[in-house]
C-alpha cells in the first residue's frame, strides 16, 4: 500500500506534470488558432436549429413504397459488400499479420514492411479508397468490396499481429518439443490461442464495415449510399428519411448480432 502511494506521488511530481501543463497549453492554443481560422458565418450558425427542424418536417411521413421498392434491395447489397469485403480482408490479412508478428518472424525488415502496409491502409479513409477503385473497376459493388478490404487490412492486421504476439510461449514450446513440423506448431500451438481474438476482431470489423459501406455509394461504389445521394439530389426527403431509418435499423441489428456472437466466441 505504502509503495503504491509513493509511486502515485511520484507520478504527479517532476517532468510529467510539466509535460501535462504543456499539453493543455498546446490544446488551448490550437483551439484559439482554429477558431480564428475556420470561417464561421454567425447567421448560418444561428439559423441551424430552424433549418434542421424544417428538414425533419419535410421528411415526414416516411415514404413506405420507396422503402420496399428501392431501399430494401439496396440495403441487402450494402450488407453483401460489407460481408464480402470483411472475408476478403481476413483471407489477405492473415498471412500478413503472421509475417508482422515479433514472435514468429525474427527479420525486422519484413516486419517493418508489414507495419507500413497496415499503417498506410488505415490512414486512407474507405471513401478515398473507393475513389481509387471506382477509377479502376468502374462504378459498382466490386469497387466497394475492394475499398472495404483495403481499409480493413490495417485494422485487422494490427490487432491480429498483436494477438499473435501476446500468445504464450509455453504451449508453443510444448508442441515444438514433441517434434511437430512448423505447420502443426502453428495449427496446434498458435491457432487455439488466437482463435477467440481472431473471431472477435472479424466480427468487430464487420460491424464497422456495415457502417462504412453505407456511404461508399456516394462516390459510386455500390450500396445504399448511391440511393441516398440521388434521393437528396432530387429533394425526395420522405425517401431520404426511409433510407436513414433503414440504415439505423441495420446498424442496430448488426451491433446486436455482433455483441451476442462475441459473447459466444470469447
Amino acid at each position, binding site marked *: 500500500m505504502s509503495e503504491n502511494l509513493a509511486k502515485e506521488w511520484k507520478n504527479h511530481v517532476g517532468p510529467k506534470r510539466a509535460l501535462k501543463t504543456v499539453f493543455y497549453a498546446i490544446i488551448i492554443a490550437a483551439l484559439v488558432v482554429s477558431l480564428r481560422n475556420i470561417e464561421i458565418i454567425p447567421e448560418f450558425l444561428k439559423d*441551424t436549429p430552424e433549418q434542421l427542424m424544417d428538414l425533419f418536417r419535410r421528411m415526414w411521413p416516411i415514404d413506405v413504397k420507396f422503402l420496399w421498392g428501392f431501399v430494401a434491395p439496396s440495403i441487402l447489397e450494402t450488407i453483401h459488400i460489407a460481408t464480402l469485403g470483411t472475408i476478403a480482408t481476413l483471407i489477405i490479412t492473415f498471412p500478413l499479420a503472421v509475417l508482422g508478428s515479433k514472435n514468429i518472424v525474427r527479420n525486422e525488415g519484413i516486419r517493418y514492411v508489414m507495419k507500413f502496409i497496415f499503417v498506410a491502409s488505415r490512414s*486512407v479513409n474507405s471513401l478515398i479508397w473507393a*475513389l481509387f477503385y471506382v477509377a479502376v473497376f468502374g462504378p*459498382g459493388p466490386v469497387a466497394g468490396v475492394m475499398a472495404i478490404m483495403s481499409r480493413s487490412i490495417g485494422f485487422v492486421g494490427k490487432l491480429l499481429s498483436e494477438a499473435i504476439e501476446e500468445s504464450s510461449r509455453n504451449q508453443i514450446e510444448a508442441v515444438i518439443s514433441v517434434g511437430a513440423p512448423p505447420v502443426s506448431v502453428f495449427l496446434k500451438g498458435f491457432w487455439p490461442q488466437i482463435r477467440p481474438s481472431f473471431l472477435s476482431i472479424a466480427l468487430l470489423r464487420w460491424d464497422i464495415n456495415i457502417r462504412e459501406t453505407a456511404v461508399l455509394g456516394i462516390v459510386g461504389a455500390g450500396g445504399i449510399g448511391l440511393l441516398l445521394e440521388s434521393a437528396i439530389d432530387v429533394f425526395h426527403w420522405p425517401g431520404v428519411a426511409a433510407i436513414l431509418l433503414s440504415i439505423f435499423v441495420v446498424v442496430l441489428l448488426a451491433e446486436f448480432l455482433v455483441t451476442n456472437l462475441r459473447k459466444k466466441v470469447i
Partner: protein
Amino acid sequence: MDALTRRVLKTQEPVPTGGMEKVRRFFRFYGVQILLFLFVVYVLFALSRLGISPKRISEGFTQGKVFLSRLFPPDFITRWDDIRHDMLESLEIAVVASIIGILLSLPLGLLGARNLMPSVVTWPVRLFISLARAFNPIIIGIIFVKAVGFGPLAGLLTLSVASVGFIGKLFIEAVEEISMKQVEAVRASGASFLSVIRFGVLPQVSARFIGFGMYQFDSNLRNSTTLGIVGAGGIGGTLFAAYQRFDYRIVCAIVLLIIGLIILDEYVSERVRRVFQ
C-alpha cells in the same frame, strides 16, 4: 461441437428414443457446422449478386496499371496553396470538434448513467447518443451541409455530433463502472448534488477522459479528410475536385499528405498517452 466431443458424448449419453429429442440432439451436435454451411451458402449467393467475373477482374487490373501510371509522380506544386489551406482546415475542424465533443459529452455522460439518474432522463440521452453514433459522419455531414450550407461549419457540427456519439458512450460506461462507495461517502457528509458529482464521481473518471479525447481526435482527423467530398470543408473538397478533373497526380499528392498527417498524429497521440498514463 468438434468430432472428438461428439464421439465421447455418443458413448456416454443414452440414445434418445423420441423424434423431437433426436432432432434436438442433431442440432446440438451439428449446430455450428450447419451455421457454417449456411454462411458459406450466403457468401456464394452474395458473390453471385455482385456480378464479379474473372473478365471484369482482369480488365480491372489492366485499368489499374494505367491508373497507377497516371498517379505518379505526385504533383504537390500546382495547387499547393489550396492544399495547404485545406489541410490546415481539416486539422482545425478536428481540433475544435473534438473539444466541443468532449465538453458536450461531459453533461450528457452524467445524464445518461443509469447509476446516477432515473430512467426517464437516461433513456432519451442514450437514444440521442446512439443515434449520433449509428450514422457515418458522411451522412450526418450531408444533412448539415443542407442545413448550414457548404463550408467548414458543416464539418465542424458533423464531427461534434460524431464525437458526442462516441465519447458520450464511453463516458457513460465509465461512469456506470465507478465505485458507489465514494459517492455514498460524499453524499453521507451532506453534500449537494453538484458536490457529489464533483467530488464523488468526477475524480473516478477524469483520468480516462484524456484517453477518450485523444482517441476521438484521431478518428475526427481521419474523417475530416473526407468530409469535403460532400462539401463539409477540409482537404476532401480539393481531393474530390482534383479527382473529378482527372488530375490524378494531385490526388496522389493529397493522399500522400493525408497518410503523412495520420502517421504523425498516431506518433504524437502515442506520446501523449504515455505522459498521461
